């Protein structure tokens, strides 16, 4: 059996995984230690801790690969429930770090159950959809699937950790692949467009533009008998949405959330206060130029201008010290990994494996987009890590487990019938 694993395992994925982890560690070293005075093995330094997490990850990988592939499918429900319980347990035993009660205190480290809940949810979704009785085109089944996905997210939001909850949008990937109507996507996209335009120009203008477009549509289609009720429903829905967005944004959101949106939308410029993180990170990346300033030579990195640089903002170190060349290579590396996972999912013979694969790709991808988008100033500030790259034990293990369960499932394809 060991022999078949070695032959069937997807070595390209393993290679990318290790490249990311090693390159990530190199940057964590630079961001946290600075590089003057040589390497010091001190358990208080993030780079030494990360080395330990990496070593433990390798043990995890061995265990995951050693387990029977069927184990994951069979025990997916148990794992899912256990994961939900671990999230709920935070409300009782959780430890609060910088305002969020997201950790269990294990003494030498904090364990963040939301990092593991992603893999558990992915298993549960895969199990549910691959059930022979499930048909994702039926509304009832869709709602059940949404419930499986939303449960952990709903527990995570009040911790509060909206960033980690946002990740569950990733499950659109497998659902869409398995036949979920594209209308959900269109609906979601229009909601986002409407949301942004409302914030930018206000609900009255949105409604005004809407009336104009409807009149235009009526004139264009004047030869046909118009479906007045459809127009009316759309109109009412949009007006309601636009005004409620306006209301929620101004009355329910807290000021810090509003600020984050306003900065990305360009309505506010504030390089010292709330916009400081993004501004400093753009400066760090931008100062890298074509080839970067060289490893541990980043002035921004050394001066600790970018907050949380070894965790969420690690990419700014890449940008500053490795330049356009290095950061582009990193983007290509991630993109290749995602495409490879999709490819592996497609070649799998079992639906469970395929759905799980798409979930993995979706989860990693959404982390990637939100994180790089935030660090490069394209998206609002949402604190989630860059997979395999950011400092943090829970995160690294969560992603390792997520990925290597799929590597195991993929390696097992030769045994499927």
């Amino acid at each position, binding site marked *: 059996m060991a022999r078949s694993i070695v032959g069937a395992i997807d070595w390209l994925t393993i290679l990318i995984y290790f490249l990311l982890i090693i390159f990530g560690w190199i940057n964590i070293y630079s961001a946290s230690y600075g590089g003057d005075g040589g390497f010091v093995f001190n358990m208080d330094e993030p780079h030494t801790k990360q080395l330990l997490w990496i070593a433990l990850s390798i043990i995890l990988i061995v265990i995951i690969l050693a387990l029977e592939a069927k184990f994951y499918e069979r025990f997916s429900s148990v794992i899912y429930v256990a994961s939900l319980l671990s999230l709920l347990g935070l409300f009782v035993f959780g430890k609060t770090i910088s305002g969020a009660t997201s950790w269990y205190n294990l003494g030498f480290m904090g364990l963040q159950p939301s990092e593991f809940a992603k893999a558990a949810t992915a298993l549960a979704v895969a199990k549910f959809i691959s059930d022979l009785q499930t048909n994702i085109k039926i509304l009832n089944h869709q709602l059940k699937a949404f419930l499986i996905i939303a449960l952990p997210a709903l527990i995570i939001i009040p911790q509060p950790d909206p960033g980690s909850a946002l990740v569950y949008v990733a499950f659109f990937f497998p659902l869409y*692949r398995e036949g979920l109507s594209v209308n959900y996507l269109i609906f979601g996209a229009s909601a986002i467009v409407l949301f942004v335009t409302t914030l930018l120009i206000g609900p009255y203008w949105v409604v005004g533009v809407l009336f104009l477009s409807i009149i235009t549509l009526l004139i264009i289609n004047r030869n046909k008998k118009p479906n007045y009720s459809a127009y009316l429903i759309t109109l009412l829905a949009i007006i309601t949405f636009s005004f409620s967005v306006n209301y929620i944004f101004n009355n329910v959101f807290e000021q810090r959330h509003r600020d984050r949106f306003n900065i990305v939308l360009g309505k506010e410029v504030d390089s010292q206060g709330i916009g400081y993180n993004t501004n400093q990170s753009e400066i760090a990346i931008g100062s890298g130029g074509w080839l970067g300033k060289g490893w541990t030579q980043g002035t921004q990195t050394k001066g600790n201008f970018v907050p949380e640089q070894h965790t969420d903002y690690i990419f700014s170190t890449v940008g500053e010290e490795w330049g356009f060349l290095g950061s582009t290579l990193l983007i290509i590396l991630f993109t290749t990994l995602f495409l490879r996972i999709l490819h592996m999912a497609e070649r799998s013979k079992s639906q469970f494996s395929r759905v799980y694969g798409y979930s993995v790709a979706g989860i990693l991808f959404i982390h990637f987009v939100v994180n790089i988008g935030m660090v490069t100033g394209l998206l609002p500030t949402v604190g989630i890590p860059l997979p395999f790259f950011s400092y943090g034990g829970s995160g690294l293990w969560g992603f390792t487990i997520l990925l290597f369960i799929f590597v195991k499932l993929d390696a097992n394809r030769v045994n499927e019938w």
Partner: protein
Amino acid sequence: MRKLVLYSIIIVSGLVFIGRLFYLQVYNTSFAALSEGNAVKIIYDYPQRGYIFDRNDNLLVENQPSYDVMVIPRDLKPFDTLEFCKILKIEKEVLLKKLRKARNYSPRLPSVIVPQLTKDEYAYLQEKTRKYEGFYIQKRSLRSYKTKNAANVLGYIQEVNDRIIEKKPYYISGDLIGMQGVEGQYEEELRGIKGVKYLQKDRFNREIGPFKDGKYDTLPVRGKDITLTIDAKLQAYGEKLMTNKRGGIVAIEPKTGEILALVTAPNYAPDLLVGRKRSKNFTKLYYDSIANPLYDRGLMGEYPPGSPFKTITALIGLQENVIDTEEHISCRNGYYYGRNNRRLGCHSHRSPLSMVSGIAHSCNAYFATVYRRIIEKYPRPQLGIANWEKHVESFGLGNYLGYDLPVGKRGLIPDSTYYNRAYQYPKYKWYATGTISNAIGQGEVLATPIQLANMTAAIANKGFYYRPHIIKKINNQPIQDTLYTKPNHTTIAPKHFEPVIDGMREVFTNGTASFLQVKDIPICGKTGTAENYVKIDGKRTQLTDHSIFIAFAPKENPKIALAVFVENGYWGARYAGRIASLMIEKYIHDDISRKDLEEWILSHSLEEEYAKPYSGEPFKINQ
């Protein structure tokens, strides 16, 4: 199909990010500069500014430490403003206003709160400064003057303004720069090169050590000391003689072109423009538009040269061979010319006169005749003027002399274009007689005192001059610049100078300055009395004549050549001649034998004369 949508989402996101990175890292270069600005702190180490010595190695200008109280607004903690104001002796409102201004300029960069504390104030504050976070004391170096004179020669130091910073990237806000005089001219030698230290900062703006182990740091280079050609004693004496008068004295050593004294009156004490009182004093000097103490009359004052210019007319006449030294020309109380028998007046003297006595008695008719012959030697006056102009300009008149001080004027030697325009040629014709005033240094001709002194040096040297200059040594190395060591030859043959110099000698022995002779020093000179006009309420009004004198001495192997202008001092020997002869005696003998003459000059003031045009009352001139 559905597969492809997801594949494309991933690929498009990757491309968008690469595009964004390209924009941030390659396309938009402003981030790199921002990065340097907030991660690296630059500290400058200012070197000592070079000292200034006179030609006899007397120290004129050295440095004194000065202490500025600086603030970095964002490092400020609440503090006892009342006590702080008491220590610094400033009003609370002033402090608050300055703090507000500093914050507006930049919360992160230092601003000056109180400039230039004295040593005592500094000592007292230094003990307390730890209590006031955000404030610190910046040591700078200011000028300290060992002389009370020569402010116009030395120039001054000022803080750079935005315009200078923009033009000269060496300077940053708060730096000092030399302006005017030798401080301005030799700024790069005097200032040295400031040292730079780069410090790595963290996000709290704390310094966490040298940037890249000090790889880019440099040490300051001390400014060079310079030695001037000025004789401090002569300069001081000249300024003393010019008290209560307006005008200038320029003295040059003919055999080198070195400027021995450059006096302008009124002047100011150089230490007025140092320290905390600088801006108040500068404003006062700057806005004194009547006496104009910041205006260097020795270099900038353009006056009609008057009779000293007759020496040039004589030299050109000899060179052009239109007169010889023997010919006598008669004078009937003036020179009559033109169809209407117009007259160029002259004072009474014996007649007829040859060249030597013509110069000695300054006969207008003699030089008008010579001048007319010079111009009329050519078939058309345009050609005559052009030839005349060529000769005159070879004496350094009518153009910038190219000396090493930052200000100057061209003066004016009119050419044919000038007269063509003035007489609307070819609609109207003009003749030599239309320019006859040039013969006696009136009319259109204008010259600055330094140009006249240089012209005198050229006569003393019998036909050549060295470009006047103020620099003698840099870091004790004599200057080698051929600009100052190559003689400029005039267009007049050396032999023609003899009779003119004899004439200038006779001015003293038997002429207009005979009462100014100095024992043992054969002085050659020429008096001048120049009519001048100003506009008062738009009306051209004649004022009392300018008193002018040029001289060199001794006659053989001259050591000093000078020009003296005293505005509205009436006839040449009255003020300028007296001053010139005292200056020469002072320089050559270092002692004044004619105390009564000195006393006369020191006790006579022209302030009353200068007040006349501004009194609003009708006034009389030439009294």
